[in-house]
Every structure is written in C-alpha cells, then in structure tokens.
C-alpha cells in the first residue's frame, strides 16, 4: 500500500469534529424544545392520547355548459363514522339507530366485527349523505356516542333542465378490484367514489380533486374535541371545473324531441367538432339518488331490456342505411370510374344473380343520374354503381369517412362500428361463401354494415367543411384538432349540392327538414332491421347567413321512414339554431 502520507493537520480534524458536534447540538435543541419547552402541550396530547386523522373529501369539479350554466354541481351532505375502539358500554345505540335508520343489531355487529382487527383504530363508515338536521341532532347527543365522527361529504346535484344523463355519466363506490388497479397518483381510499361512465369517467383525474385531512384531538372517552393544529390541516382541493361544448337550450330541445322514443340525436359545430347537444333515449334519472349510484338501482337499469344505461349516441350500432350513399357518391366522384352524369333507368327492381333487389319506390324513379339518386335516395342506381367497384375500394372509402373507427370523442368505451372487409367476410361466411350480392346491401348501408350515430355525424361534418372537420369533443378547449379528408373540391361541391336538393328540391326525401331560416342540406335514411319497423335516420347540416353551421345526426329506432320521422325533428333543431320561434 502506498505510504505517500502527509499527516492530517489538526485544523482539519477539529473542523470535522466541530461540524458534527454543531449539527448534533442543533438536533439536541430541537429535542429540548419538544421535551422541555413544549412538554406540557405534548403531555396533554399524549394523555388524551388520540390524535385522529380526519379525511376531508374534496368536492368534484363542477360541470358547466358552454354558456356557463351549471349542469352538475355539488351539495353538502354528511357522513357518520365511528372509531370502533372508542365505542364503550355507554354508547347509545338507540339514538344512532333511530337517526340513521339502521337496525341496532346491525350497528352492533358491524362495530363489534371491526373491533376484532387492527382496523379498530380506523374510522368505520356507518352511513353517508345525511342532511344537516340529522347531524345536528346526533351532535347534541355526542357525549352518549363516544368515537363518533361527522364529516362533510359533497355529493353531486344536477340543477339544470337539461338532463344530459349519458354525457355526464354517474359515480359508483370503488370496489376492491378497482382499488387494486387504480393509479397511485389519485390516491383512492376505501369508500371513495369514482366516475363510472360518461364524462365523469373520462375526466376522472381532473374532476376528482385532492382530498384533504385535518387532525382532531380525541379525549380518552372517545369524544372529538375538534381540530388540533391548524398548520397541519391540509385543505381539500376541489376538482377542476369542466366547461362543456353543450348548449343548454339546444340540449333541452333535443331531449324533449326524444321523449318516450328510442334513439339518439347529436348536434355539433362541423368546423370545431364541438358537440352542442347529445341525447340518447331512453335514459335514467340522475336525480333519483344522492351520491354514487346505489347497487340495486344500477343492476335494475343494467338488466332493463330498454337499456337506459346505454349511450346510443356513441355505442348504438345501427345499419346506417341510405345516409351511407353519400360516402358511396364520394367514391364515384373521386375515382372517376363513372361519370357523375352517367344515368340508370330505375324501374323499381334490379335483377342480380337469381335474386330480385327492389328500390324503396316500387314503381321506380325512371331515369336517374347521381344527383337524382341522392335526392330521391334511389337504390337501383347504387346497385348498378357498385358493379363498377370491388369490396376493397368501397371499404377504403368508407374508412376514409371514419366508418369502422372510433371518432376519438372524449368519452370512454366508444364503439367503432363495422365496415365488413374481406377478412371479416371470409371468417363469417366460410361455409356458405360470400359474393357481390353482399356488396349490394353494403352500399345501401345494410347487411353487416354497422355505425354509431356519432360516426354518421362525423361524415356530415366532413362534407360540411370540405374535409376539414373538427374532431368531435364534449369539453371546451382552446386548440381544435382537425380530421382531414383530402378530396377534390369538385367532389365536395357535388355532394353538398346533392344534399341541398334532398332538402330543398321538389319532392326531395328531406323536404320536411327545410327550416324557416338558413340553408339546410341533408340525407335521410330508412334502415331495415330485424327488430321490426325500419330505423329512421336524418343526417345533415344547416348554414346561417353569418356562416355559422350546425350539423345533426338523428336516429329513431323503429321510427319508420327517415323522411317522415327524423327529418321534421331536424327542422325543429335547425330553426332553434337560427333563432326562429315557430312550431
């Protein structure tokens, strides 16, 4: 070992020793401070021997509509907890049982059970969402209820006329499984609630807020003497406020239109993708309970055959029907395989293979070109048209418009619909095989084709903006994402013109959608389905003089013809948007 060692000067040694001793002295002073100077304070706390950490639940973020009208707010409620270890023979179960409306035997067994484990030092939840009167009556009898704790617990309230049931979603109490997988950052505890559907779920990290806590001094009889040290209090942080793109007035109108029907209506601004209204019927009443949804109510609704919990706007899978003809028209115009002036004679029936395919108008439309075919929604034209294309091309164009994919709206569990491609068909029809016959139904938006109302709306938005539609969203944001679709201006102009004739032309299928003010364009659809009457579709948009646009997608399940049921609803929506006060 090298011995190049010069001796260490004493100054260095004593420097280090003094540094260590100096820090030890600071440490010692702090102990002195606690044990001698503040002895009586800590002694007092120790004799009373219980500092209890009391959680302070954070209120969830408030949700407003685009004009600042509150849609979801919080109201104060209270919860009653008890520290099991503090419950002694003097505990007055009778009062508690009366006020909480829980049988005495149940309370006793619950508390005794908790006393068997180390959880006896932790607050045990007895009942939630009690109002102030109950709490004040219990407070008066505090001396007979050792170990009892009251905490304020904010609960959701829905002050607006617009129900927005499916958009908002609901809360449930966390389950064991949820706690295991939950993000650590959000700090969930037992008995917490969490967003289970809709925006409450999607924006859970924002809405949740941060729970606070404070320390209470509890004496040796288990009586809570209130807050101990103010500086150790951690105030709860309220969840972030959400401002929706929803327009309260329009939403109310749309909900009224759907009253006692089944189906969905969505309205949006095509340029920004802001959703003005979104409704799905039948729905359920968020005001029928306080706090998280009660489990029995939830399972009732969940098993109801009308499926009220189901958000048809984003999860309803319907055959898009004739609305899909718009996308097929775009395919024709973009590929240029056939001239838009190419015409077909519709006599009401089309023979393919050994089957007859009918037009919806039994007598036929006569000579129709592309524009007429859209205006009158002629099936025969599209049967002939699709003969010029193969499945692959058709699938590609449908995918262009977003069919078969999620739109990316800010709601969890959106459905992506179904555009059957070769792989899918090979798998489904292996034994029987599939043929061009299937393609005949597909082009009309029938057969295996399925889409959500939201996807139909996205198509309308792409058309209304010449392929520069805003990504659909429910929460206001400063940056707009754009869904682009690069087609030639000629294509867009043609489709828009054709949609104009649907609503404004003589005997167009959408003439009942024509508003009193503003220029509307659209397409109806009447989708055959195995559940009875056809579904009634209308998809279109209106443009006001000032350039403002509103797009709409309407589906009424088993409503009958689109031109008769859905189109008049669109008119009411368009009129409302234009500020016309008729009807």
């Amino acid at each position, binding site marked *: 070992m090298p011995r190049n060692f010069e001796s260490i000067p004493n100054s260095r040694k004593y420097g280090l020793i003094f540094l260590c001793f100096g820090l030890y002295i600071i440490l010692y002073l702090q102990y002195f401070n606690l*044990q001698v100077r503040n002895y009586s304070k800590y002694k007092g706390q120790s004799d009373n021997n219980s500092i209890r950490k009391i959680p302070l639940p954070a209120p969830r973020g408030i949700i407003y509509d685009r004009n600042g009208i509150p849609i979801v707010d919080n109201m104060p409620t209270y919860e009653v907890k008890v520290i099991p270890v503090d419950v002694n023979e003097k505990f007055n179960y009778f009062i508690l049982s009366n006020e909480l409306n829980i049988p005495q035997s149940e309370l006793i067994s619950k508390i005794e059970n908790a006393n068997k484990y180390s959880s006896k030092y932790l607050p045990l939840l007895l009942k939630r969402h009690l109002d102030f009167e109950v709490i004040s009556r219990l407070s008066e009898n505090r001396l007979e209820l050792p170990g009892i704790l009251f905490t304020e617990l904010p609960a959701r309230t829905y002050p607006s006329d617009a129900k927005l049931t499916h958009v908002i979603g609901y809360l449930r109490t966390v389950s064991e499984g949820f706690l295991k997988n939950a993000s650590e950052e959000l700090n969930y505890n037992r008995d917490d609630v969490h967003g289970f559907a809709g925006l409450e779920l999607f924006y859970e990290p924002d809405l949740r807020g941060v729970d606070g806590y404070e320390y209470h001094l509890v004496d040796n009889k288990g009586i809570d003497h209130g807050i101990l040290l103010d500086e150790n209090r951690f105030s709860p942080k309220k969840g972030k406020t959400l401002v929706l793109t929803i327009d309260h007035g329009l939403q109310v109108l749309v909900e009224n239109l759907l009253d006692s029907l089944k189906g969905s209506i969505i309205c949006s601004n095509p340029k920004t993708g802001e959703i003005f209204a979104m409704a799905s019927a039948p729905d359920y009443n968020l005001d029928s309970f306080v706090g998280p949804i009660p489990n029995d109510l939830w399972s009732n609704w969940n098993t109801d055959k009308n499926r009220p919990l189901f958000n048809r706007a984003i999860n309803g899978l319907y055959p898009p029907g004739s609305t899909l003809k718009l996308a097929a028209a775009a395919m024709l115009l973009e590929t240029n395989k056939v001239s838009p002036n190419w015409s077909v004679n519709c006599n009401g029936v089309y023979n393919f293979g050994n089957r007859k395919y009918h037009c919806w108008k039994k007598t036929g439309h006569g000579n129709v070109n592309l524009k007429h075919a859209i205006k009158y929604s002629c099936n025969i034209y599209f049967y002939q048209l699709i003969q010029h294309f193969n499945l692959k091309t058709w699938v590609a164009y449908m995918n262009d418009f977003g069919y078969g994919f999620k739109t990316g709206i800010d709601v969890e569990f959106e459905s992506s619909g179904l555009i059957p491609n070769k792989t899918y068909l090979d798998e489904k029809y292996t034994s029987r095989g599939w043929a061009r016959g299937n393609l005949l139904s597909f082009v009309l938006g029938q057969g295996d084709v399925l889409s959500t109302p939201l996807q139909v709306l996205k198509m309308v938005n792409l058309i209304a903006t010449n392929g520069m539609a805003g990504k659909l969203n429910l929460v206001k944001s400063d940056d707009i994402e754009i869904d682009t679709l690069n087609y030639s201006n000629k294509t867009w102009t043609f489709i828009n013109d054709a949609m104009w004739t649907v609503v404004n032309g003589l005997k167009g299928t959408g003439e009942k959608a024509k508003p009193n003010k503003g220029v509307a364009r659209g397409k109806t659809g009447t989708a055959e389905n195995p559940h009875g009457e056809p579904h009634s579709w209308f998809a279109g948009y209106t443009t006001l003089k000032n350039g403002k646009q509103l797009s709409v997608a309407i589906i009424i399940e088993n409503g009958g013809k689109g031109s008769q049921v859905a189109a008049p609803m669109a008119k009411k929506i368009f009129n409302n948007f234009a500020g016309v006060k008729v009807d």
Partner: protein
Amino acid sequence: MIKEFFKRYTIFPANYKITVGIIFPILLLIIISLMILFAANPNSFQLNSFFGKQSVWFGVSIVAFLIVQSIKPHFFYENAYILYGFLILAIISTYLFESVGGSSRWIKLGAIQFQPSEIGKMIVVFALAKFLTDLRNLSSVYKTITLSFILTGIPALLVFKQPDLGTALVYIFATIPMLIWRGYKLSNLFVVFGPFISIIAASNIIFFSIWMGFVVFVLYYTRPKLINAIGVFISNIIFGTITTLIWNSLYPHQKNRILIFLDPTKDPMGAGYQIIQSKTAIGSGGLFGVGLGNGTQTQLRFLPVRNSDFIISVIGEEFGLLGISAILICFGIIIYWMINYAQITRNQFGSLSIIGFSSIIFFHTLVNMGMAVGLFPVTGLPLPFISYGGTFLLSMFLIIGITQNFINNNFR
C-alpha cells in the same frame, strides 16, 4: 491459488485489541435497543419476536466483527475496484428480482434475502478511498472532485432508482468529508457541489436563505479569487431560482409525479401522520421519560414503524431527554474517536476509509433523529445499532470491525 489468496490476505491469529472509545458506546446503544425492543413488543421471550431476532443478529454481528479482524487491510485497498464492480452488478441484479412493496432492493437466494446496497455503503467508501489515495498530487482539483462524485454517483443513481433515496444520499454524503480529509478545500467542493444543493434547498425559501448564507460564509472564510467567488454565488442563485420557476410552472399532477418518482413509498398524508405521532411521543417523554414499557403512544400502536425508523420516538417517550442525551453522547464519542483514529492512522487508504465510515454513521444518526422531530423529511434511514433490522446491524458491525482492524494494523 486459494491457499495463496489466504496467505496473502489473512492474518492468523489476528490482533483482537479493542478500542474502548468506540466499542463501549456501541455496546451501550445495543443494550438500549434490545431493552426497547423487549419492552415494546409482545412475546419477547420467543426467538421469532423482534427482541429474539435482533439478539440473534447481534450474535451474528459479533462473529462477523471477529472474522473481519483476520483480513489484512491491504485486501480492501487492492480489491476496492473489483468489489465496486461486483457492487454495481449486484445492484443491477436486484432489478431482476420481484419487488417488495414497490421497491426492488433485495437479492433473493432461497430463504436468504440480501440487500447489496447496505454492504455497498462500505464498498463505495473503499473505492473512493483508493481513488483518492492513488492520486499523485492535488492538482487538477475540479477534475478530481468531479470524478469522485461520478464514482459515488453511479451506484447512488442505481440505488436511487430501486428506489431507495436514503441510501443513495448516504453514498453521496460520504464523499464530501473524504474529499476534505484528502485536502480539498470546502470552496472547491462548493463550485461542483453547491448548485445541486441549491436545487434541493430551493424547495423552501427559509432553507434556501440559510443555504445561501452558508455559501457566503464559506466564500468569506476560504477567500477564493473574487471572480470565482462571484461565479459560485451567482451560479447557486441561478440554479435555485430556475428550479423554483420550473417547479412552479408544473401542474399539480406533474409535481406529484416527480415527488412520487423521488420517493414512491411516500404517502404525504401517512408521513405527516407519523411525524405528528412521533413528535407527540417524544414531547410527552419530558426530561426523564415515562419509563420503560410505559409509553402509551407506542403501546397503543399509534406510532407506525416504531421498531425500525421511528425507534427514537419510543426512546424519547420512555427515557425522555435523558435517554436522547445518552444516545447523542454515545454517537458523539464514537464519531470523535473515529475521526481521531483516522488522523493517527499512518496510511492514507485506512485513514480515508475511517472518515468515510464515520460519515455514514453520522449521516444516519442525523437524518434519522432529525426526521423523528420533523427537521428532515421521512427518508427511511434507520438509526445505527438501535433500529430493528438484521442486515443493517450486520453492515454497521462490519464497518466498525474494519475500522478496528485498520486501527490495530496501523503500522503494517
């Protein structure tokens, strides 16, 4: 070859002389520890109780102490870098084992669990001591200081990612006194090290003010060139303020993510609760304490981790300021004699190692006892010789054993 190895590196019979100034206070601390563990836990007569297990570990530690005396000091010098390499590999391999409570600190071989970062404290000291011993002279000051921090920083970073913030800080902290001992000036260290402390100190305006005052104080007494002094001062200010600005511009969840990254076991609510309970327990002990086994706070289990990280709270309650004084005096004596022997020791490597060891012990005591009274954040560093925990006790005894060895073989 094995025979040669033993011939080269072992002495038998070894010199079993004991340095009373170091060993006696340690035995006192052990007695206090075992008393507390005995009284504060149930079933202490059984072998698998806290008291029983710790007693067994104490026995094992004494055997280890004796075995270590047979190793020639130059074994550690010559193999310091090899041990360092093994350490790095061992720490990396902990990532391959299943994590316990969110952190992967252990290597598991059958029933035996082994925490390499614990023994690593010693090895990091050896590696740095060798590096500083092998320097021909003290020129290229900043290069040497930087290299020293890289040498200890690599294992520190690996340990920090396990994640074990406390141990990582121990590695880094031990570097500073060793550099000073080797002859570097505090002002030199400041140039390299200061800005990083500024980053941490910037979290609290009071800390930052105290720290900057300290910087000025050091600059004044060490009297570097004016331009250097200004440079150091300004760089510290800039590092501190920039960090604060960046930190303040973060969203709460981003901040939270960083805090959780720094210490994933951190539960702000839980840690705050522990400190409050701990302060109440200590404060209620008063001058003389409530007596062994009479601590209401601890007996009622309101105090979490009372056997390991917060054992000082139990001592504070049951033995009062008297007990705390005894413990601080014991540690003071140990540190005093270790530094003294580091000066007496006539070889550079041994001398530096002993300084590194005393720094480790000192840092543990300071942080652990400071944390219990709210002076430091909860980092999970145990109190040497007192906290419950087998590997830790063993590693502390190895440190003391090697120190004793260096002292006994001073002139070899």
